[in-house]
């Protein structure tokens, strides 16, 4: 007799797995099944799910079974992914942003000195994301461009003005806590 819960249990596993799930892996999660029981449950799940849920399907791919959106829906998915703002920053970009936020207006050579690393490409990323802007040139030899944070920066970080940025002294205790 087929365990009536088995197809649903399989679905939960397929959904939560980051990769296609193989029969062998499923065998480990559901030990003690009769020969062919797993395959039967999977077949039933696939036919039920693929019939009931129009937008998704359970497919057999190279590595095993997985749930995917159906090709007909790729356009909407793509449209959605495009609307997602990528406010995410790499660690080097974050570090450069921190130097600019706390030392502005600041020039590239100064940023380099503080970070100890060339920062040209991260500057470009931050300019593209409109988190920083140029602030004229410094009146010294070479007249390097100065950078500062933008209004967008304040909005993104929920700050009314720059004075709302916490200072290192204020956060000393919190930052000194090691986990």
């Amino acid at each position, binding site marked *: 007799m087929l365990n009536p819960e088995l197809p649903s249990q399989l679905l939960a596993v397929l959904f939560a797995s980051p990769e296609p799930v193989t029969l062998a892996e499923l065998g480990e999660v559901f030990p003690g099944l009769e020969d062919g029981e797993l395959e039967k449950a999977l077949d039933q799940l696939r036919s039920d799910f693929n019939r009931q849920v129009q937008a998704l399907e359970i497919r057999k791919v190279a590595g095993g079974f997985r749930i995917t959106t159906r090709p007909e829906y790729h356009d909407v998915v793509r449209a959605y992914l495009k609307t997602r703002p990528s406010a*995410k920053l790499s660690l080097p970009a974050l570090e450069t942003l921190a130097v600019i936020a706390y030392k502005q207006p600041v020039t590239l050579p100064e940023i380099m000195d503080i970070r100890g690393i060339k920062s040209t490409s991260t500057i470009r990323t931050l300019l593209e994301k409109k988190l920083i802007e140029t602030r004229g040139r410094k009146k010294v030899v070479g007249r390097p461009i100065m950078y500062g944070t933008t209004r967008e920066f304040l909005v993104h970080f929920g700050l009314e003005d720059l004075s709302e940025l916490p200072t290192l002294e204020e956060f000393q205790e919190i930052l000194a806590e090691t986990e």
Partner: protein
Amino acid sequence: MQLDRALAEDAAYHVNLDVFEGPLDLLLHLIRSQELDIYDIPIARITDQYLQYLARMEELNIALAAEFVVMASTLIFIKSKMLLPAEPRGQEEDGEWEDPRAELVEQLLEHEKFKNAAQMLFSRETVELSVWGRGENEFEQEEKEMVSATVFDVIKAFHLMVERFKEQIVLEVESETVTVEQKLGELRRMLTVQREFRFSIFFEKRISRLHLIVTLIALLELVRLREVRLHQVGLFEDIRIAAC
């Protein structure tokens, strides 16, 4: 750690040593576990039990937060006030006696509400930890490792950088050769750690003559670049170097 010994002779109760996050937690435990009326706390008894707990902790060499000691003195203060006869309040018509315990009671009740709210969050978390979203693919996991940055991420990045050059500064003092460029970088980093410092620290650091001279040249360069200001508070005061 569990103490299997009753702390007070007048009540057979046990104190579980590891649960008290603060003095309010301990007090609430003493009151609730003995089913005392929180609106009419027997302050002498509670104070004794509280102090015994502190003494016990000391015996066991367990360091308690300073807040525990502050509360001890508060309790003793309330206790002494309770012993005084109520002050006559001739002028006040509705001259009600102000209970010295009132403020503490209010604080305890407020604290208790949040303890209960924490329990609610705990059970919600338990339920939530038993459900999963769609398994994230490699690409999404990678994206997740990028920081969707908050103010805290910014200040943490800055903090870690500052910590990094604190180490560097120590190292560079030791090196044999030195250039003005190196010193410029070093000074800029120092100014990031501290917006202002005293000129004399260069002498205190016991650096070599060569380092000192190069440092002075770099410092003058920074003045010229208008990155720092030098100023003196009084005639024979130390010169201070401040970021512009």
